[in-house]
């Protein structure tokens, strides 16, 4: 089977351009990540029109939807390249970098803002974690977040550098709130109100794109209950 990949490329600081590649495989389970890996293995990579091309820059690590490194926009939707099976698609497959973050090169983006926001929100435990049966499953689900940035890409309210930090900070906030006493999480709750609760338009588009299948609405409801409505 032959697949056509249209990749939005950009060299460090240069102009963006689209380049088409062909990838041929007999393996039905090959993903976008496989295609990018195999294309880059070629010493003489050429685009679909036969022109020499430099290797495609992209990030990957686990190749099984557990690390978030390979998040990109695939046919208009933010998702992980290692979870996007080529045979799902009909026609050309477009690959673009996540648009909410500065492009480093090709499909590599600088997601530093994700981690800076977590620091701004002071997301860490003050003392020992408290565990209750009520919140055990919630803490597990919240800890599954891989900080890929897909939820921010789809969010109509988030822009990097803005006051609203988006869904990417909510899983950690929810876990910490569930493991702290209301007295301990007073500051986290204040920052949550300012940087999350106040800006969230509740579109819940994040729920539809989370590669881990995290029920973002459930996390928001619980975080709101604990941080805003003081119910714990």
């Amino acid at each position, binding site marked *: 089977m032959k697949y056509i990949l249209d990749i939005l490329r950009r060299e460090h600081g240069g102009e963006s351009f689209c380049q088409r590649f062909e990838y041929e495989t007999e393996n039905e*389970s090959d993903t976008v990540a*496989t295609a990018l890996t195999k294309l880059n*293995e070629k010493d003489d990579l050429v685009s679909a029109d036969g022109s020499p091309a430099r290797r495609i820059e992209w990030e990957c*690590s686990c190749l*099984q939807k557990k690390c978030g490194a390979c998040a990109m926009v695939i046919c208009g939707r933010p998702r992980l390249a290692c979870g996007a099976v080529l045979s799902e698609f009909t026609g050309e497959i477009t690959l673009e970098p996540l648009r909410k973050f500065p492009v480093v090169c090709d499909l590599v983006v600088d997601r530093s803002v994700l981690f800076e926001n977590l620091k701004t929100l002071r997301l860490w*435990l003050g003392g020992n974690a408290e565990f209750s049966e009520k919140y055990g499953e919630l*803490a*597990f689900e919240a*800890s599954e977040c891989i*900080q890929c940035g897909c939820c921010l890409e789809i969010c109509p309210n988030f822009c990097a550098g803005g006051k609203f930090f988006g869904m990417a900070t909510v899983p950690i906030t929810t876990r910490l709130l569930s493991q702290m006493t209301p007295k301990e999480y007073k500051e986290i709750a204040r920052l949550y109100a300012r940087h999350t609760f106040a800006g969230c338009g509740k579109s819940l588009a994040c729920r539809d794109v989370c590669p881990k299948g995290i029920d973002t609405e459930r996390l928001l409801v619980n975080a709101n209950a604990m941080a805003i409505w003081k119910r714990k």
Partner: protein
Amino acid sequence: MNEKTVNIVGAGLSGLSAAITLSRMGIHSRLVSSQPSERAQSVLAEGGINAALDTMGESDNPADHFSDTMKGGCFLESEAAVKELTENAPRVVTELFRLGTPFQNENGRLTLRNFGGQKKKRTAYAKSSTGKMIMTALIDEVRKYEAQGLVERFPHHDLVYIKTDEKTLQSIFVKDLYTGEFMSLGGCTILCTGGLNGFFEGMTTGTTQNTGNAAALAFGAGAELANLEFIQYHPTTVAISGKRMLISEAARGEGGKLFIMKNGKPWYFMEEKYELGSLMPRDVVSREMFFVKNASECTGDVFLDMTTIGGDVWSGKLSDLRKEIISYLKQDPKKEPIAVSPGIHFFMGGIRVNDRFETNIKGLFAAGEAACKFHGANRLGGNSMLGAVFGGETAARAASKSAEGSQVKPVPDYKDSVSSPQIRARLRDLLLGGLGIVRSGETMKAALADLEALYSAKGISKIDRLRVSVGIAAVESALAREESRGAHFRKDFPKTSEAFRRQTVARLENGRPVITFEKFGGEGALKDEVHS
């Protein structure tokens, strides 16, 4: 910078553990990684972490954990190191729980599960995502110290060079992968860079970021490597696009059993032969799978039968594992057995360190899977994360004593050496040929001859030549070890020999690997050797 600083390369479990330990001592660290911690291989660890917490009414204790670890490792590890590890395990796991890891528990009392090579329930877990859960908690803890300025992240930076002078570390060079710029980080350094997965690209359960380059660079800088022949093939893996996917040992811990069709009927070969059945140590299970798969009376693949596992276990303890299997294999393990085969999962060998986790290069330390330390000839499931967290902590304490003020300087004229995908693929194929589950002098000699040719290939880059050197050292180590022990099984030397209860040590002399067998365990031996 005048304040004491330690460089940590690698931001997985051992790196984070080292950073937390140093921060608590008030010592600044630079945490270098090619990607953020969320992308580290540690997030893939599944089944659990061992500690004799004795919460299951089985009278467990650290002495039993010690003896199981020694036995599982075929007595090729330092007794003192394993004793320290197993005695500290309850404290380490309790601390991880305190930091917010959502381990399975009942009213704050940890629930433990069965794991391979251990008769008692000793493995703390969070479903089948224990590594990810621990990592999340440690990342949050490190964030606190980042905010305080005690941890400085270099989160898109690759280690490219280890500069030494007279067996003393001068600095490490790193490349900013976003800008392409090089910089030198002075001061002592802990390598927490994981195992040699990258030497078997696409054929392991690990990540693509775990290239093995750090070990090759350390080797090139004069560091000794040890026990390179001991490579763990995990019994239950499946091929997915681009890699091997692990089916956690937890599946067998919760009742899953292996079988193969023999004379037209399912044969549960492990249960028939061993008291612990499918929960024998991984080296034993993988070897038995190899033999039954090649037996004339058996047909087809080896299957992992998880259909007898109860619905409550699937909905609770193994819900994430089931979801993953269905997602990648389109098969429901609750309803049908899954074809599995052994795949490379862990490297017991690595950078040789002494009791202080210091290498033979003064100021260069190693911890976690990068170091050869606790696991002898075969690691027990549940001991890797323990070794990583405890190792990172211990190495950090030792490194703190060598820490001094150091600077970050640009190195604008540094010429990087680039690895070639073709050379990496060839290296992988040759190593797979020589270092399989069952080995022989003949196949290893054939691999070695081809590796020598690869080493001399025209135009091979400096880093690739170093990588091939490590590959040669691994095969030569296996060839020199004329016995079978743990993960190293030779059909031409099938017995274990007391004479080989020694550590295989590889070092570069005049640019070529030299293999010797040396004492381990009496910490004094290595300590004296290293810095006398």
